[in-house]
């Protein structure tokens, strides 16, 4: 009987320890979600407030640049806005995961949504990156000129807003990994 009691006590300590680990994973997830939200909302705002008008004008050349001039940048703004909205809406669910112990089905739902949002934000960030690269370097073979030589601050702004979005991509991958680890644990 004594060995049986010792077994029960050891098992319950083990359950407590792994419960603590699960709670730590859930808290880390919550924090990462908040950080990713801030990154995506910053990217959205930075890109959406691009507006540069050069101080001189002629009849033929355009001297105004904003994000809606390039469809890839518009898609970037929309994608990042959607993902930041999703991240803020998933915060209550992540909070429930900290408190509650049997969270497997909601974690699967969260993985599915996280994967979809990862795809969306990666698509937005990469297409904007391709266009920003073209704006910086141009392309001799297709006669596409680099517009950054004229629009300096516009170019700097669109390049800078990509950083937050790519950080959010990495954070979303980490979030999916954490959800998977939490799913595969015993508790």
């Amino acid at each position, binding site marked *: *009987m004594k*060995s*049986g009691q010792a*077994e029960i006590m050891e098992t319950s300590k083990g359950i407590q320890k792994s419960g603590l680990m699960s709670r730590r994973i859930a808290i880390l997830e919550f924090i990462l979600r908040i950080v990713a939200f801030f990154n995506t909302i910053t990217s959205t705002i930075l890109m959406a407030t691009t507006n540069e008008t050069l101080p001189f004008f002629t009849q033929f050349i*355009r001297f105004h*640049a904003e994000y809606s*001039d*390039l*469809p*890839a940048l518009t898609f970037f703004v929309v994608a990042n806005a959607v993902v930041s909205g999703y991240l803020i809406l998933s915060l209550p669910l992540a909070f429930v995961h900290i408190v509650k112990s049997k969270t*497997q089905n909601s974690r*699967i739902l969260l*993985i*599915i949504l996280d*994967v*979809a949002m*990862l*795809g969306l934000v*990666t*698509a*937005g*960030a*990469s*297409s*904007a*990156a*391709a*266009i920003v*690269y*073209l*704006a910086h*370097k141009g*392309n001799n*073979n*297709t*006669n*596409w*000129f680099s*517009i950054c030589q004229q629009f300096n601050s516009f170019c700097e702004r669109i390049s800078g807003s990509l950083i937050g979005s790519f950080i959010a*991509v990495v954070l979303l*991958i980490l979030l*999916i*990994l954490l*959800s*998977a*680890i939490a*799913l*595969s*644990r*015993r508790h």
Partner: protein
Amino acid sequence: MKNESTIIDVPAESSSAMKGKAPLIGVASGSGGYKRGLSIFDFLLRLAAIIAASVAAGTMFTSDETLPFFTQFLQFEAGYDDLPTYQFFVIAMSIVSGYLVLSLPISVVTIVRPLATAPRLLLLVLDTAALAFNMAAASSAAAISYLAHNGNQNTNWLPICQQFGDFCLKSSGAVVSSFVAVVFFTILVVLSGVALKRH
């Protein structure tokens, strides 16, 4: 005198041991079956994704086009290496196809041992990274494809598809195939997530 008692003394350890073992065996055969089915589906999806990714890389690699006439001033050759984004696309899709081929043995391990969580977790992480990489290549090439088809008036970028029809068609087809591979990856990640669930 013999003490004949009708009370049966069941030692505590053996009863708890029996209670502990039986449900494990019951759960193992039950969930092992459906997890094995998920692993087989995972393996087949991986094969399909290999085809999609390698078709994308191959089509973009062989999308060269040379127009049959020439003048002194204009370019009449178009290939994937004229655009750095398309170069990135070919390299990325090749890496993704290579990764998929290398992940086939791990998928076989999850078929053989359906209850082990370590191979599935590894596959989930690597698949997520490959999904992000694939999506990056596909969407940047799609942005350039869109530009090649439509041009952009605000930046004076002319659509090159009007001259290079074949090149445009092949490169757009490669981008579509790459997005199909992305869909396969999404399903693979979700599948691994569902199969990781412990009962």
